[in-house]
């Protein structure tokens, strides 16, 4: 199978996640009485789900540029974590590398890490198509949502569950890869702590705790190795 077809198949669940989610963003964005094409620009140059939703709030509140900058850094700090674990999979140089880095969203990251492709040529082509396809779904969703939003009053009640379901599915896929319960239990513990300490900063808190704790644990060579089946 060609890299394109493999990538297209792998990206389909993201299509059904990004289209409604992008549309939800577009609808909210249109609610601010802004030009619809600005939602498309957001999908093209920012391309970050959570941050774009936050942007609607920031724009509505008329936040200053330094505020926008800082809150986006914090909101997206989890991407540092993602980069760390794809360092050896991504190409080491070139334009493709930087596009892949730019397009490293939660979902693309999840797909990239949930399958192994041994051949580097096919692997890089696969990552390239996957990233581009995912972004095109997102841009399409943002644009459609904004167009719909300026045209009708619509409700997307309940559709946001798609993303929860997507993460659940990807977690199960990760489970099939490692088949170790310990890292998952540690992550549940960390999440519970983060929810308890600062629910508003949950993502950044839980993810940095996971990085620090795992960074400490992996110094041991045999930590949580996958049993041979």
């Amino acid at each position: 199978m060609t890299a394109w077809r493999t990538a297209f198949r792998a990206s389909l669940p993201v299509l059904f996640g990004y289209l409604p989610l992008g549309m939800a963003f577009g609808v909210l964005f249109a609610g601010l009485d802004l030009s619809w094409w600005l939602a498309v620009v957001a999908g093209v140059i920012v391309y970050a789900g959570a941050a774009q939703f936050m942007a609607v709030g920031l724009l509505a509140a008329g936040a200053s540029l330094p505020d926008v900058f800082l809150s986006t850094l914090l909101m997206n700090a989890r991407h540092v974590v993602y980069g760390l674990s794809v360092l050896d999979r991504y190409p080491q140089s070139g334009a493709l590398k930087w596009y892949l880095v730019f397009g490293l969203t939660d979902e693309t990251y999840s797909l990239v890490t949930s399958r192994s492709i041994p051949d580097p040529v096919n692997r890089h082509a696969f990552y390239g198509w996957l990233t581009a396809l995912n972004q095109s779904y997102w841009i399409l969703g943002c644009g459609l949502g904004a167009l719909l939003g300026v045209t009708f009053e619509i409700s997307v009640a309940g559709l946001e569950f798609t993303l929860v379901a997507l993460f659940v599915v990807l977690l199960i896929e990760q489970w099939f890869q490692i088949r170790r319960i310990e890292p998952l239990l540690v992550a549940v513990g960390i999440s519970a702590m983060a929810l308890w300490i600062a629910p508003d900063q949950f993502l950044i808190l839980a993810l940095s705790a996971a990085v620090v704790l795992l960074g400490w644990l992996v110094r041991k060579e045999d930590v949580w190795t996958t049993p041979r089946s």
Partner: protein
Amino acid sequence: MDNTEVLMVLVTMAVATFMTRAFPFVALAGVADHPLIRRFGRLLPPMVMVVLVIYGISGMPLDQIGSVLAVASGVVATVALHCLFRHVLLSIFVGTGVYMTLIALGG
């Protein structure tokens, strides 16, 4: 707010987002092959996924017993279907369908 101001906000966000994504590639480029980084890269994704699942669930409306049950049913349906058939789209669609149906019935 005029278009130029909105564009300034979007460009600012784009720069900040790219900085977070590029940081490890710029700062840690030489060590990608290290076995420690490899172990780290293999074990981090499942942990991140646990965090994202919990993040996603905590972002759902959970203020009534009915909405908690709807989320729980949606998650259980998704897990069960995925373990049975391992068909990503089916799991996501039916799981979301279960959730939306319960929300519609309850609200």
